[in-house]
């Protein structure tokens, strides 16, 4: 791989590599770390939706109606549902990292528990938020 052109077949052998992602068996903590970054990246572009909401409200009834038509559509609701989950998952993942920053929760069982709690908690909270949302709307429309 990294052999120079001067290397012959006899001297060529694989150079030692430092361990990297692909040689580890996927672990939950590792996957959740990656998901934390992915949700962060998604939320980054999701702020466009938030900005659109505020700007449309400031622009007037017509612009606001356009925004409402989009978030009310099927695609809009899927995006909004994903945004809700990503935000809550990133928030709970962030709390987990803040706990780790205090040097707590590093025992094998603890870190596994924290990671599962992030995933289960984010899904549960997303459903709770949407149920409250639909109740506030007065039932599914």
């Amino acid at each position, binding site marked *: 791989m990294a052999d120079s052109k001067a290397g012959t077949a006899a001297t060529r052998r694989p150079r030692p590599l430092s361990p990297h992602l692909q040689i580890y068996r996927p672990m939950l903590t590792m996957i959740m770390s990656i998901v934390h970054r992915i949700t*962060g990246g998604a939320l*980054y572009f999701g702020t466009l939706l*938030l900005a659109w909401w505020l700007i449309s*409200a*400031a622009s007037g009834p017509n612009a606001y*109606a356009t925004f409402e038509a989009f978030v009310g559509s099927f695609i809009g609701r899927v995006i909004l549902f994903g945004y809700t989950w990503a935000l809550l998952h990133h928030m709970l993942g962030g709390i987990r990292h803040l706990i780790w920053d205090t040097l707590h929760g590093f025992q094998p069982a603890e870190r596994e528990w924290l990671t599962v709690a992030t995933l289960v908690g984010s899904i549960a909270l997303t459903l709770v938020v949407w149920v409250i*949302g639909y109740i*506030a709307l007065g039932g599914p429309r």
Partner: protein
Amino acid sequence: MKAQHDMRTPARRVRGLGPAHSGTTDFWHQRLTSFAGVFLTIALFVVIISMLGRSHAAAVQILGSPIVAVIMLLFILNSVYHMWIGMQEIILDYVHDDKYKFLSLMLNTFFCVAVGLASAFAILKLSFGV
């Protein structure tokens, strides 16, 4: 004077090299904004749920009220700073070519400033009712 404890050679000091003394700033500010973000996110959900299904006039009234406007401003400004640091970290991790690295770092800053400014302007406009 500071120079008494300075371990750098005079030549290095004159060239302006040596530590920037800001190495952990991004790390600390990311924690700061993440901690604030937990409370602001909960507040955002309360605001959004309270606005579901309302007319434009009602939405303007809620978003323009001082407490909601301040919560929204704090959420937006806190978020764009947090995501500016986060995206910068991602770029520095994955983009190694100088050309693309500096271009993407610039775009990151432009994006965050634009989203933050546009949102803040909208909130202020709603608040002041102009």
